[in-house]
Structures are given as structure tokens and as C-alpha cells.
């Protein structure tokens, strides 16, 4: 599959008066292949938005290279921008224009027909409020209008920076479904978020960023596995006795809630069962425990940075 985003050694420093420069990106390497939903994850301040700004030509990189749909950024950007829809941080729209007028102004830049504006508004469920001023919109509605603007070009690549920001639970589910359907249509959806669990539900592949560096990339399953090592969750009547039996059998184990989590890969489930049965404990549940991206992130970065839940 062709790469739609290629980033090589990308570095961005912000110079400050009489202070050392702030390094937002520190030699980032990333490749995003065509199709599906790609989650670009990391806590606030990890460099996600700076990366997006760099690949869209909004900020210039201090070093490194970026290519979008095979064209160098920023010089070749104008050749591919018509195929790229994007939202960078909060959707930036004119608050005193109506939602429709905002989209019409953008549509004119690319000579997009008026029908496309209606279609985009309809797709994000804003038709009824299209003629209201944007300043009267809720944050969630602004996000949806931003997504509508990104969809106007019928893009093959969508770059969405924190699209679920400010949305209520119903809105988050809507956006999640929208991202899934866009990915299923054959578009590449590159979605950044600090809410790792949210993206885990829609992304096929993810990259985790911390302090301007890539810490993991690949399929969601691979990243989960690389973060913590696979584990097994097991339930027995006497949790403490079970934990001790596993430790005596050379298996690291901890009690979390009503489960014992054993640090062995799922294919070694037999070892766990044997150790427990040997002391007369018969498991009522034994299953692979993949954990989630938050846990994987914390283990990969080896720190206790706050990540969105």
C-alpha cells in the first residue's frame, strides 16, 4: 500500500526570548499507509498538533522532511491539497457568518458546487442549523461543522485533530461512527487524540507520540502487545492463595479487583491452570488480558503522564 503520509526526522523548535527553545518535535519518523483509520495518539503537549501543522504547511519544520500523498511539504502541497480535508485543533470558522456561508466561502476556493455544501451539512446533521450564525453553535456543533468543511472536498485523506473535543457522549459516538464509515469508504482517516481509549475503538493502526518522539506504531494489537507484554486474567475463589501459588510457580501475578493478572502470554494458560489446580484452586474464568492503549502508553513511556481516559 502506498504511503499517504511520510515523515522523516521531523523536528520543530520554538525559539523563545532569553530562554532555551521549546522542542515540540524531536526527530519524528512516521509512515501512514493508504486506507483505514489511523490513530495518532499522545498526551497533551506530545506534539500531535505540531506534526499536523507541519504536514499541512502551517508551520515550517526546523529539520526533517514530510511528504503528503507523495508530494513534499510545503512546496508540493498545492498539488495535493484538494484531496486533503483537515481540521486543526478547534475548527476555525468565522463566528459571525452562518454555517452555510462558512462552507460556501471555502467551497468557492475549489469551485465546489453548492450541492456539496448541502450534502456535507446533511452528513454531519447540521442542515437545520445551517443558516444560524456559527457563534450561536455549541462546541460540538462547531466540531461537526469543521468536519463538514473537511468533507467538502470529498478528500482521499482526512486529517482530523481531536475531532471529538467538546462533544457530548452522543456526539462522540456519532463522530466515532462517522470515522468508521469514512475509513470503510476507502479514505485514509488520520485522527489525532489524547483520548487513547476513544481512538482504540475505531483505529486499525496507531502511532503513539510522547515528548515529540514516536514511542510505538503499528496495528492496535501490536502496540498493545509491545506495551505491556501479554497477560492472562484469571478468577479463583481465593485470590490471595491463587496469587501465592502463581508466584511460587515463577509467574508474576497481581490482584486487580476480583481478578488475578498473571504476566504470561495467553498461549501459556496451561501453566497458570496447573499452578492453581496444584493447590486445589479451580479457575472459574481464564482469558487473555490485552489491556488498553492508556496502559500500553504508560508502560511504553515508562512514566506516569496523565492521559485522557
Amino acid at each position, binding site marked *: 500500500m502506498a504511503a499517504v503520509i511520510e515523515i522523516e526526522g521531523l523536528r520543530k523548535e520554538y525559539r523563545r526570548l532569553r530562554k532555551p527553545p521549546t522542542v515540540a518535535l524531536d526527530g519524528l519518523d512516521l509512515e501512514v499507509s493508504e486506507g483505514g483509520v489511523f490513530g495518532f495518539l499522545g498526551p497533551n503537549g506530545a506534539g500531535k498538533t505540531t506534526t499536523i*501543522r507541519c504536514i499541512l504547511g502551517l508551520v515550517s519544520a526546523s529539520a526533517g522532511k514530510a511528504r503528503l500523498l507523495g508530494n513534499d511539504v510545503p512546496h508540493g502541497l498545492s498539488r495535493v*491539497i484538494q484531496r486533503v480535508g483537515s481540521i486543526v485543533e478547534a475548527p476555525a470558522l468565522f463566528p459571525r457568518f452562518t454555517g452555510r456561508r462558512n462552507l460556501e466561502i471555502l467551497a468557492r476556493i475549489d469551485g465546489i458546487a453548492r450541492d456539496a455544501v448541502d450534502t456535507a451539512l446533511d452528513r454531519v446533521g447540521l442542515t437545520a442549523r445551517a443558516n444560524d450564525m456559527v457563534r450561536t453553535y455549541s462546541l460540538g456543533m462547531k466540531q461537526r461543522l469543521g468536519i463538514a468543511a473537511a468533507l467538502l472536498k470529498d478528500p482521499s485523506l482526512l486529517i482530523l485533530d481531536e475531532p471529538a473535543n467538546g462533544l457530548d457522549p452522543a456526539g462522540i459516538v456519532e463522530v466515532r461512527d462517522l470515522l468508521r464509515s469514512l475509513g470503510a469508504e476507502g479514505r485514509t482517516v488520520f485522527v489525532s487524540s489524547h483520548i487513547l481509549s476513544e481512538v482504540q475503538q475505531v483505529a486499525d493502526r496507531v502511532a503513539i507520540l510522547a515528548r515529540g518522539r514516536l514511542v510505538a506504531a503499528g496495528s492496535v494489537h501490536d502496540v498493545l502487545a509491545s506495551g505491556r507484554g501479554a497477560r492472562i486474567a484469571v478468577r479463583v475463589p481465593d485470590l490471595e492463595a491463587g496469587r501465592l501459588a502463581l508466584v511460587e510457580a515463577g509467574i508474576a501475578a497481581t490482584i486487580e479487583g476480583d481478578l488475578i493478572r498473571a504476566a504470561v502470554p495467553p498461549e501459556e494458560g496451561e501453566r497458570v491452570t496447573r499452578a492453581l489446580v496444584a493447590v486445589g484452586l479451580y479457575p472459574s474464568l481464564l482469558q487473555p488480558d490485552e489491556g488498553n492503549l492508556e496502559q500500553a502508553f504508560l508502560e511504553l513511556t515508562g512514566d506516569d503522564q496523565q492521559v485522557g481516559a
Partner: protein
Amino acid sequence: MRRLIASELLRFRSRRLVVVLLVGALLATAVGLVIAAFQSTPPSDAAIAAAEVRAREEMASCLVADWDDVSFEGTLQEFCREYVGDPAQYAGSHLKLADLPKVLEGISSITSILGLVIGASFVAVSWQTGTISTIFTWEPRRLRWFAARILVIAAGVFVMTLVIVAFLSAGLAFAAALRGSIVGVDGAWWSDVLTTSLRVAVAAAISAVIGAAVAAVGRHTAAALGVVFVWTAVIEGLIRGFRPLWSPWLLGDNIVTFLSWRTTEFGTIQGPVTFTPGHAVLVILGYTAVVLFFGFTFVRIRDVQ
């Protein structure tokens, strides 16, 4: 580029500030005309006839007078026409349509300020609201975008000023016909009105372009207006006071010369200074080019956060 201009044009005419300023200017003009009309006492036919006689006499004596010590451009006929002035002025104080070119020159400072505000805010608002990010993700060729916006600003303010000028001219003609005089309205007057209107509109358009270019550097409307104010009112004022011989290179003085389209000469402590329309055009274009250069440079190189 055509699509980009179409998009910018739609954005320009959708701006509330543009509509509010245009409607406000037209309302203020209407109110001013009504007040002027009420305060004007229309001269009688006899007074107008007497004034025309008086003007002819003044003209005749001007043409035979000794003007050896006075330097002027053009023919003696042209000099005397300007010296004698409109015949209507000899018929007492009232609204005179013949004064329209001077009135238009008088409102040019207001239309130029309107242009400056519109130009500065139209550019700065994109940075202040963050919409510049959205724009550049649709048109990443920044210079192309800025050129389109500058063109739209210049054209928009030019047309807007012509609308104000046309409204004022029509209103003054109507008021003068009812409550004043239309003496002195001839072919030369029409030509004067037309060229003055165009110069007023051009001056407003140039102010808008300068405001837009400064706003592209400062990214804030108030900052842009402040910079232009400090330059024209403070710095140029100081230069005019301490270095009067540099006056021919100041923006404000040259805009005045451009609007009046007359060669003027002033004596100063340091010597005479002369302003000519051609020189004024070059200086104004020079200032505009320099400010635009900085505007384009900042738009091209600065990060959009």
C-alpha cells in the same frame, strides 16, 4: 486565482463591518445634507444674477491686473478662473453645487479612514479568529491568497467609496436645487467632480491596502491602526516640524496633494518645498509597495499557530 478572488469577494461582502460602515457613512451623509439644507437660504434670482455680474467683473479685472510678481502654472485665464471662484459665492452663504469637488476632497479623510479600518480588520480578523489555518489548508500558496485578498480589499473599498461619493453628490445636487444654487455647474465642473471622485476612491483603496498590509505584519486590527496613526500623525508630524524640507517625502502631505491634484509651494524656515501631483503619486506608490513587501514577507514566512 479567479476562484480565490470569488471566495474572498464573498467573504468581503458577508462581513458585518463592511455593511455597518457603509450604511453608517450613508446615514451620516444623509443627516449632514439635511442639516445643511435646512441651514441654507436659497438666493433669489436677482441675487444670482447680481452674483454672476460680479463674478464677470472680477474676472475682467483679474485678466488685466499686474501679476508679474506672482508665479502660477497654466494660462492667465485658468489662474483667474480659480482666483475669482464660483459665481455663486457672491450671492451670499448657501448650499452651492459648485462646491461639490471641495466637499468631496473634504470627505476623503473620512473615506480613507474607513478604508484603513476595513483593510486592516479584513486581514487581521483571519488571524484573530484562527480562520487563517482553515484558509491555508484550502489554499497553501500564501502569496497567492494574500494577493487575492489585497485585490478584493482594494476593489471593494474603491467601489464602496464611489457609492458614498455618488450618494453625497446626488444628495447635494438635490439639496442645492431645493435650498441653494446650482450656478457654476458646467463642463469643467463635471470633469472636476469626476476626477475628484476617482481620486477620493483611489485614496481610500490605497489606505485599505496599507491597512491590510500592516495588519498582515501585526496580525491585529488595533495594532495596525495604531501603527498607521503613529506614523501619519506623530512621526510625520515631528518630521514636518523639525525637517520641513523632507515634507515632499511624507505620505500625508502627498495624499493631500494627490487629492487636490494641484502643484503647491510652501515657504519654510529651511527653504521652499514644492508638491506636485506626479511626485505625490510616486511617493504614495512607494509607501504602498514598501508596506506590501513587508506584508507579503510576513504572510509567507511566519508560522500559523
